[in-house]
């Protein structure tokens, strides 16, 4: 289980406190207004932002001193989720090993993951030769192959059209839950949260609210979320 224990993040005149446990093997949405610190919260869990106080614990072990690559955490950013100069098989393989000639077991796993996401036959293509949806699938294959138990989604599908985004969100949920991952997903859209997130947390006014069931939260939003959603 991932637990944030009295975490306090300070950047210039911005501050955010968080104290919650991420529901295991489930999808949790992160809702809140722009600039409230949703991405910063993910950055702290991934290891890009060092908290000023508190601990981030995985199975009781403190992650805060670890660099991003040593954490049990995968993250999909808004963009640049694949290296544009490498083919997608190499991109996915880098989640396992940086070796120039990975062994057959690695290659097999990479090809299996790409096939699972409908990208068989495209292993040798560079990201630039794929559509936006295919690039998202390749990045998702990388996350699956990495096999890390916590997955952070920082609006990776925001640039896609509504239908494609919905399709990829469903696919992501199905694949990651099947792999047993705990997922934390930033979104601007309450409909996206309602669609795939079991729980939701609200980041607003310098605080992170503890997880609550998405349907209940959206049915009766707290004041900060109510203002963000534009409800009276």
């Amino acid at each position: 289980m991932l637990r944030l224990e009295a975490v306090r993040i300070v950047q210039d005149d911005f501050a955010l406190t968080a104290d919650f446990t991420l529901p295991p093997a489930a999808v949790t949405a992160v809702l809140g207004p722009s600039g409230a610190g949703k991405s910063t919260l993910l950055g702290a869990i991934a290891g890009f932002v060092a908290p000023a106080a508190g601990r981030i614990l995985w199975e009781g072990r403190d992650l805060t001193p670890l660099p991003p690559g040593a954490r049990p955490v995968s993250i999909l950013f808004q963009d640049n989720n694949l290296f544009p100069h490498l083919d997608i098989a190499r991109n996915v393989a880098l989640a396992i090993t940086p070796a120039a000639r990975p062994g057959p077991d690695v290659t097999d796993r990479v090809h299996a993951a790409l096939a699972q996401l409908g990208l068989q036959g495209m292993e040798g293509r560079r990201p630039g030769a794929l559509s936006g949806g295919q690039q998202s699938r390749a990045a998702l294959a990388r996350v699956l192959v990495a096999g890390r138990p916590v997955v952070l989604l920082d609006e990776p599908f925001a640039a896609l059209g509504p239908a494609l985004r919905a399709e990829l969100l469903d696919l992501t949920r199905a694949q990651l839950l099947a792999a047993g991952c705990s997922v934390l997903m930033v979104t601007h859209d309450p409909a996206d949260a309602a669609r795939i997130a079991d729980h939701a947390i609200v980041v607003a006014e310098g605080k992170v609210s503890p997880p609550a069931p998405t349907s209940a939260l959206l049915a009766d939003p707290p004041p900060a979320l109510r203002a963000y959603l534009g409800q009276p």
Partner: protein
Amino acid sequence: MAHRAVALGPLRWTGTAAAVLVVALVLGTLAAVASRAGSGAALASADVAAVLFTLQQAAVSAVLSVALAVPVARALARRRFAGRRALVALMGAPFILPVIVAVFGLLAIFGRGGLLNAGLGALGLGPVSVYGFGGVVLANVFFNLPLATRLILQGWSAIPAERFRLAATLNAPVGRLLERPMLRDVLPGAALAIFLICLASFAVALILGGGPRATTVEVAIFQALRFDFDPAKAALLALVQVALCTVAAGLAGLVTVPAAFGPGLDRVPARWDGRGRGARLADGAAIALAAAFLLAPLAMVVAQGFVGLGQLPLQVWPAALRSLAVALSASVLAVGLALAMALRGGALVQVAGVLPLASSALVMGTGLFVLSHGWLDPGHIALPATALVNAAASLPFAFRALAPAVGRIEAAHGPLADTLGLTGWPRLRWLYLPRLRGELGFAAGLSAALSVGDLGVITLFAGPDSATLPLVMYRLMGSYRLQAAAGVALMLLAMALAVFWAFDRGGRGHAAA
């Protein structure tokens, strides 16, 4: 930067070591020069004259280059014509053109037996001489008029197209409203940059200057070492040269010196001014004259070179191999150091990345000469010393090409590499090297081309068996074997262009998406 330290792992230490090596080379040679200069040498009146000549030729060259570049840059900024892109590219060429080759071409036009004097003679007018002050300035302008044009053209390109549109709707004078303020900002920096370059123009002054009234400080260093065998005197002069360069570089630090390789020179915004016949004629004349001034000497090198190829003496071939070996070594060294430093980042490498500009190649060479004097045969270390100093001299350019690119790569792809745990060598292998390919190729090509045509440090060290190709050409010119020299000039030109093209092309080939 603590974060980048983690990401680089052991690579960080290579960057530190590279920066320390560069600082040690520049300051170490300087210290050697300083310690040697203390031992009893004094400046004679001829040396004071050399200082004055150095300052005068640099100042006049800078002012002339910038003044002549303004009409050329204005014409390029507001005219679209076939060949404009080629002409702008040509303006970048003198940077990699071997100095001795260009001077040879200039002599073929303006020299005693050149086209100009032949024409004047036909008109019954007396011959003009390009040796001495006039010749040095002529060659400096040949090299720096294109640089000034590019710098000023960048200023013009930086004026947003909307401003020209606004000025046109208001019927406002573009010159006073937009162009003059821009020139006021750009010209001092451009002139200072060229002044700095001309302060250390050794080869030009060596070939076209000489004699008591046209000797620069760097030529005086060469003469003290090679003719007077007086390292103490050479060291004292080297200190004077460093003082000149440091003061000028300090002045340049007060003014912003623009970067010579900026983007966006291809763009010609729509303009509504300069449509009169006079303006069109002036622009056409500026472009035609500039193109002729740059192309005619090169055309002469090619034309006479083909004739001279049959006269090449045998010593040319081993010299060409030596030049190639020196150029490749210098290139690998410069790019390797620059890459290690650019990856490391931080204040130390920022200082080390510009430090060689404060010294000069000949000063570093003098330092190495003083350090090795008495226990190493100069002829034996001629090639390694030349490669080392060439590498140091082109390091700032290589560093300037790589450092911003590393920053962009980190910003775009660093987080992904971090989450994948790509640190140290794997990060270099999978992220930096492939994404820096273009910049690495450009920097390697630049370093190799600069080194292949360099007539500098080699003159201090070379014996009969360690001459590089530019030195062989210089000796041929000195013994009036001009046909053979012409053949070598063509070879040198071809080699400089070929090494630049090969590396730069290698960087662009299979360009990554």
